[in-house]
């Protein structure tokens, strides 16, 4: 009996940009167990039935932080909470990124996918580089946190309003050819993850990608969060249980 739900107090809440907010909760047992790339199932008030999956962005002492964008009812509820309010969370859930990989690691994050990579950046420090892709300069969130810990941080924007114009994976390409990365860790929209997989295959580097799928339970019992398996003997894997982080060769995107 090791898993639990927690009623956690919001220690801090902050607005970052656009519709993006950060909630930091005080929850010692959760902080102790959370690993890079894992997620929480967050209860979002009486107007929602299912919990919402949100990745763990950071652990600092006994505090756990999440960064999320307002998409619908659940995330809107979260965005309106205040410091001192309580939220009920279930977790930490899923298998995250392996931060014990020896050697250099390249992080590739796109949009909201930047946030779950931060704990990897902290763990790997100067043995990791990061390429962070955003829509435009207005959307830059948490890039400075990566700059504070990583060796090199490259920023791309779709419209060229900041950093390199273009996609994160295009920028990652030039880093990959000039370094000997032992692994790529990536999170972002599906087209980006497909491109990461192609890049990883081309240069024969293992890529660990974090996937999203609609969930009900988040802890492996309902079988909602299916993703096609690349293994002929297995039809589906489950994002909440086998993932959310997969080797890009394990799944069919």
């Amino acid at each position, binding site marked *: 009996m090791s898993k639990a739900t927690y009623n956690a107090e919001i220690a801090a809440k902050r607005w970052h940009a656009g519709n993006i907010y950060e909630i930091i909760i005080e929850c010692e047992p959760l902080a102790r167990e959370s690993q890079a790339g894992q997620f929480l199932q967050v*209860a979002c008030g009486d107007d929602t039935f299912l919990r919402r999956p949100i990745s763990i962005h950071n652990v600092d002492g006994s505090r756990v932080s999440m960064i999320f964008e307002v998409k619908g009812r659940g995330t809107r509820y979260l965005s309106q909470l205040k410091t001192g309010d309580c939220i009920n969370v279930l977790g930490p859930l899923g298998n995250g990124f392996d931060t014990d990989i020896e050697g250099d690691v390249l992080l590739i994050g796109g949009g909201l996918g930047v946030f779950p990579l931060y704990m990897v950046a902290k763990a790997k420090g100067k043995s990791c580089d990061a390429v962070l892709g955003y829509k435009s300069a207005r959307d830059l969130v948490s890039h400075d946190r990566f700059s504070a810990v990583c060796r090199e941080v490259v920023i791309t924007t779709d419209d060229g309003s900041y950093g390199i114009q273009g996609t994160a994976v295009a920028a990652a390409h030039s880093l990959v050819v000039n370094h000997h990365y032992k692994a790529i860790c990536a999170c972002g929209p599906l087209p980006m993850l497909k491109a990461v997989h192609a890049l990883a295959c081309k240069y024969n580097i293992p890529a660990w990608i974090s996937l999203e799928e609609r969930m009900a339970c988040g802890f492996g019992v309902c079988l909602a969060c299916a*993703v096609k398996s690349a293994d002929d003997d297995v039809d589906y894997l489950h994002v909440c249980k086998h993932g959310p982080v997969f080797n890009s060769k394990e799944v069919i995107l």
Partner: protein
Amino acid sequence: MNKLSTAVNIAGVEFKNPIVTASGTFGFGREFSEFFDLSQLGAVSVKGLTLKPKAGNPPPRAAETASGMLNSVGLQNPGVESFVKDELPFLRGFDVKVIANMAGTTVEEYEEMARILSDADVDMLEVNISCPNVKEGGVAFGVDEKAVYEVTSRVKAVSKKPVIIKLSPNVTDIKKIAKAAEDGGADALSLINTLLGMRIDIKTRRPILKNNTGGLSGPAVFPIAVRMVHDVYETVSLPIIGMGGVSRGEDAAELMMAGASAVAVGSAALVNPLAPIEIKRGLEKFMEDNGIKDVTELTGSAKMW
């Protein structure tokens, strides 16, 4: 505290309390065992089994609704043989009755599974004739009286374990279906399975579920469950495992008053994994607060106007 009597007897099988986990929301127990001791439950019903392993439907398989959810998992499971070999021994490590839930595409498949499961170390069989998420079989058996009679009697003929028939709410008259199951020799009934529904993403104009439709469950269906359990209780003299939207102890009491002898918890446990235990405690508290010594007093105790 006065000693409460919480045991219930379902077709000769004694559950130490009336709280059961609903099939498909419990897996095979491993995940829940990390949240609480499964021996605290009366019984568990495992994920619906099929004769051969089944991949299930393409994702997305879940969508939220007002006070509930739709699912279109489509009976993904490792098959009955893998269940017996790889999953059942783990569950047998707990002091809890095990109900094997099964679904077939033909009557012969139901018979074959009943044979295999009868020889396995399970306490009861639950025959799902009501899954709305598979094309052939499933609910096709559950909406026609003759088919219900046929499946029930043929499964009964080969089964060495008590047989529960799980009824679909997607029918015109559930009383007739319940009667057909009773006539076929069912030892108990369970209801309700999910109600067929659909949600459309208004931005993409596409159903949220890749299967287009799915089964509705959760608090939204609770009043339907109460009415149907009541209707069935009035019609047949079989014990009923009631389910559909139960999320607190009071709901369990209400469903029992409508006619259920035991109560299964499904979707509520997906949102709060401790729900089955909290519901059990809530029911006990209701008994204490209201001077009810024996939980079986509740069954069918609601008086109609």
